[in-house]
């Protein structure tokens, strides 16, 4: 059920990126898609009544192993958040430059190249 809600978020982002006419909206759609994937990865690693994957001084290793949430998806998501930031930054730079050239964010007016 939680997975499905996360997937709804992803589909909303995809819908936004595919149908919107405003280039900033498209970038927002891309960002929402990324958020959904990140959340999905972390959801995959959650353990009921788990603890954060940080070893406390004096904690028993076996108990930690049995109770900690999955650390690998968290490490992956740190990487993927940064990658997302990079791509979004580049996209914003392109948007700013496109606005400078065309004077609009409307993609139906940014159409010099023929299909």
């Amino acid at each position, binding site marked *: 059920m939680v997975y499905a809600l996360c997937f709804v978020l*992803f589909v909303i982002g995809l819908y936004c990126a595919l149908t919107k006419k405003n280039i900033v909206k498209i970038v927002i759609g891309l960002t929402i898609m990324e958020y959904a994937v990140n959340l999905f*990865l972390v959801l*995959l690693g959650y353990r009921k009544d788990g603890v954060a994957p940080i070893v406390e001084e004096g904690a028993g290793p076996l108990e930690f192993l049995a109770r900690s949430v999955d650390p690998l998806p968290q490490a*992956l998501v740190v990487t993927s958040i940064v*990658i997302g930031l990079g791509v979004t930054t*580049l996209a914003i730079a392109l*948007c700013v430059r*496109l606005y400078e050239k065309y004077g609009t964010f409307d993609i139906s007016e940014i159409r010099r*190249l023929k299909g």
Partner: protein
Amino acid sequence: MNTLLIPLLVAIPLGGAFFIPLVSRKVRVLADIIGNLATLSVLVIAVLLFQVRTVYSIGGWNASVGITWVLDGFSNLMLVIICLISFVATLFSSQYMERYTAKYKFYSLFLLMVAGMNGVVMTGDMFNLFVFLEIASVASYALVAFGGNHEELEAAFKYLVLASIGSTLVLFGIAFIYGATGYLNMASISQAIRTGPRTPILTLAVVFFTVGFGIKAALVPFHPWLPDAHPSAPAPISAMLSGVLIKALGIYALTRVLFNVIGITPIYGAVLITIGALSMVVGVFLAVGQWDFKRLLAYHSISQMGYVVLGIGLGGYILASGGKQSAAMLAILGGIFHLANHSVFKSLLFLVSGSIEYSTGTRQLKEMGGLLEKMPLTRATCTIASLSIAGVPPFNGFWSKLIIIMAAFQGGYPWLAALTILVSFVTLLSFIKVLRYAFLGHLPESLKAVRESPALMSIALVVLAIFCTCMGLLLIPGAREMILDPAVGALANGVGYAQAVLALR
């Protein structure tokens, strides 16, 4: 000794890319020198490592715990292709890129792209594949927009949006795979999938991978970015994008995941055949009507990628449905050989278009004409490349198309063979048009002062033209066993990949 060289394939381009902005703001020529040296040394290393089959564990962590690099036949072939084309492209760009400002940024991004592709081709880990996919993609978005004009920015934005959707889908697919198996290492995933049940989540992951990598490879339902992005980039970058980027990020990754990680089934094979045939036909018919030289070439890239996917998909289909083994191997051989050939002649064609644009300042075929006398060398190389792509014997394109057609006949699909021949014929027509309008006819008044392109650019053209002429020789028995068959074997091995990797370790 050899194991020490493997990390350098990624470390040298990365180091070069980080180092160029530090030093070359003051001394401009350093960017040229570092860029060319980096690609040359990577090429040398790739050739030295060509016969090496090994698994390299990064950080010394074994197998599934850390990240591994796997060098097998297919990876080695791709590495050599990537490094060769990138070396020629840097050679070309040291003079060509004088047209633009901020050359050091160009070289830095270029090397990042090379590092990303090398990483994708070598890696044996799903998430690492995604990370390096993104390095190469991000660098290529910026390079498409390098000219900074209206068209370049628009094309780059379109490319960025579609390709980012593709990357996100790939990441989602990786998340599914991780949720179903608990591993990220390709060999471990493959083993877990083979022993466990095939759940619907795997099918969903395959759909996501097909769409995601399909966008990167510009196969037909997902192609709209390519005819804008490839012509808009500077010529050496067009050569890189069409020549190797769509292959390394799209076709290599897709086939690696489908064949070696998840395991090919008749349905996946049929999907690949359909997409391939569709790309082949749609690409070539869209190309015929184009008058912009680079745009025409870009549409032909879609069509030629169709050949590659058709060949590999046909092989996978026959393998999975238990057909004739020899026909399957032949089909995959045709696909991979055409991939190698296409990267050579399509890069050459884009470099030729760059060379013409450098001298005449136009890309429109209708504004050219009579360049035969003025640019003899460009004309000769262009003819060779055109004949190659159209599949005229003795050039390399002929042999790979012939193999695909033979495989289609042997496998019992004569209509696919007929389709291939038809598309090949239309390609020939379209390139006769190019040769006719660009080089024959009478010279317009405005182009009287045109001169042949500078020395380094010409050298780059000639190197690739020699490869175009000679690559047919790869099919003679000794060379074929050494170079092409290991690559075919790596793919045809299917989920046997896991054992192969475990045995190498």
